[in-house]
């Protein structure tokens, strides 16, 4: 079940350093939202606060609220582990578990979350996830080979399969195609279009065309200056952001990046 996400007055810190200030947004369920903006403006930082991965870093903290279908995931007493089971994440660099086979990589989330699962059940989940990640055909006859033995693009799709195997409601992707060739990129973009039916997807990308191709909504983040916190300049329909943005800074960034 895809869910709606809202950020309210988010101030995100690394130690005393305010990395991102006063971010507010709403992301509709079953949509693809792209985060764009210059390097260092805090896209990854915001993304990682959406599934409480930010606090994994020593000294990092968040002020404000992130509502998932209305429930604040930062409310005291909420288990970050449970939050991450609901909101999955795919990273910039493919990071399959090196000691595990392809099969075990996909099964890892389920196996590690909840001890015993029937083998037949697990088999079904692994196949379904690999099919959803558009990788099944390439790996079905070598499921017991190490996941690290796949190509970069295959590894990234393996990581996507691993993330969706635990059936999250939201999928966060931080530049999932930046290490990939155009063909693998296309494969993953196709995949995102399909996954949208079941998930709410947020994707960070530096590739404007990619944002334009796959997202319905686009959020532009910017940085007032060096040492200043990043901010959300505007968020609108992707079409509007790319053709007729409200804010001058968005227009400058888009035209600069394109021209």
């Amino acid at each position, binding site marked *: 079940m895809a869910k709606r996400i809202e950020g309210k007055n988010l101030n995100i810190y690394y130690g005393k350093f305010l990395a991102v200030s006063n971010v507010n947004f709403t992301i509709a369920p079953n949509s693809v939202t792209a985060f764009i903006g210059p390097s260092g403006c805090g896209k990854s930082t915001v993304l990682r606060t959406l*599934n409480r*991965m930010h606090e*994994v870093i*020593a000294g990092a903290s968040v002020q404000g609220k992130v509502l998932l279908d209305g429930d604040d995931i930062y409310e005291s007493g909420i288990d970050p*582990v*449970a*939050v*991450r*089971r*609901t909101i*999955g*994440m795919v*990273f910039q*660099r493919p*990071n399959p*578990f*090196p*000691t*595990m*086979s392809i099969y*075990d990589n996909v099964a*890892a*989330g389920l196996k*590690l*979350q909840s001890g015993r699962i029937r083998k037949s059940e697990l088999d079904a989940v692994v196949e379904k996830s690999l099919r959803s990640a558009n990788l099944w055909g390439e790996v079905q006859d070598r499921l*017991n*080979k*190490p996941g690290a*033995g796949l190509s970069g693009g295959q590894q990234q799709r393996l*990581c996507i399969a*691993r*993330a969706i195997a*635990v059936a999250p409601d939201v999928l966060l992707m931080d530049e999932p195609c930046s290490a990939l060739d155009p063909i693998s990129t296309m494969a993953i973009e196709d995949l995102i279009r399909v996954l949208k039916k079941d998930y709410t997807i947020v994707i960070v990308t530096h590739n404007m065309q990619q944002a334009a191709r796959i997202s319905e909504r686009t959020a532009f983040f910017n940085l007032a200056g060096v040492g200043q916190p990043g901010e959300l300049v505007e968020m609108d329909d992707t079409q509007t952001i790319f053709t007729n943005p409200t804010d001058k800074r968005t227009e400058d960034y888009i035209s600069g990046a394109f021209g």
Partner: protein
Amino acid sequence: MTATLTRSARPTVFARPSGARKFKNGLATTLVTAAFLVALVPLVWLLWTVISKGFHVIMSSSWWTESQHNQTQKTPGGGALHAIVGTLEQVALCSVISVPIAILVGIYLVEYARGPFARVTTFMVDILTGIPSIVAALFIYALFVSTFHHLRSGWLVSMALVILMVPVIVRTTEEMLKLVPNELREASYALGVPKWKTIAKIVLPTAFTGLVTGVILGVARVAGETAPLLILVGYAQGMNANLFGTKFQGSLPGMINDEFTNLNTATGGSAYHLDPNGKRVAGGAINYAPDRMWGAALTLIAIVLLLNVIARFVARFNKVSQ
């Protein structure tokens, strides 16, 4: 980009490496190779000495099946079984205690520790790493023998060895866990896996080969320690498999030491000097002490080597088949 960077014109043909660079490169290569050889020579020499003097000794079957019970340096035969059993028992008890403690401390330091307590622990481990074995032995003696009036015993040796082994394994565990990329931990957290399970199922398996190496280094560090043996248990020539008894117990370093003292007393404590290289004294009396000494030395090396091979095999077995 509107600004054009000015750069000096480049020749269209690439230049060959300059003479100076070739020379420096050659010099560096020579130095590194020379250092390698300098390090290698003593090692090979040592191994050759021990093997050439000890090999024929350990090839006799009695070496592996008999003790030195009732033997003197003038009587042939007997073996090192008592010493092998003693050493294996002492090192095994030490490892059973040290390995879990040390790996847990290593995990704590890398995965959990923050702030001053972590720094203090790291500092303590650093100090412990430098503790001489005789000091560890004296500490155990003071604690168990002087304070608690426990009689000297094999397991006290194990306790002293624990003090020496733990910091070695903590250090390597730390290094190996730090080598595990953070991305793997994050990937696991992002799947909703709790921290302790991430450590147990992702981090430790990834570092497994390295952890095994650390344990082997620890075993190699303590297996040849002699000072704790001299202080905490007497050397017995006969078999004593009771690690917790209060009788003397054989051990390989103990045997080497014992046979070494026998070199000079081949003829009943008179002033003859016997070269460890030869069996015969000037008077023609036969002394079996040198053989036994080198045999015990080779056996000790062989045991550490064997453990190494086994550990590597285990580590290989743990990997996903390629």
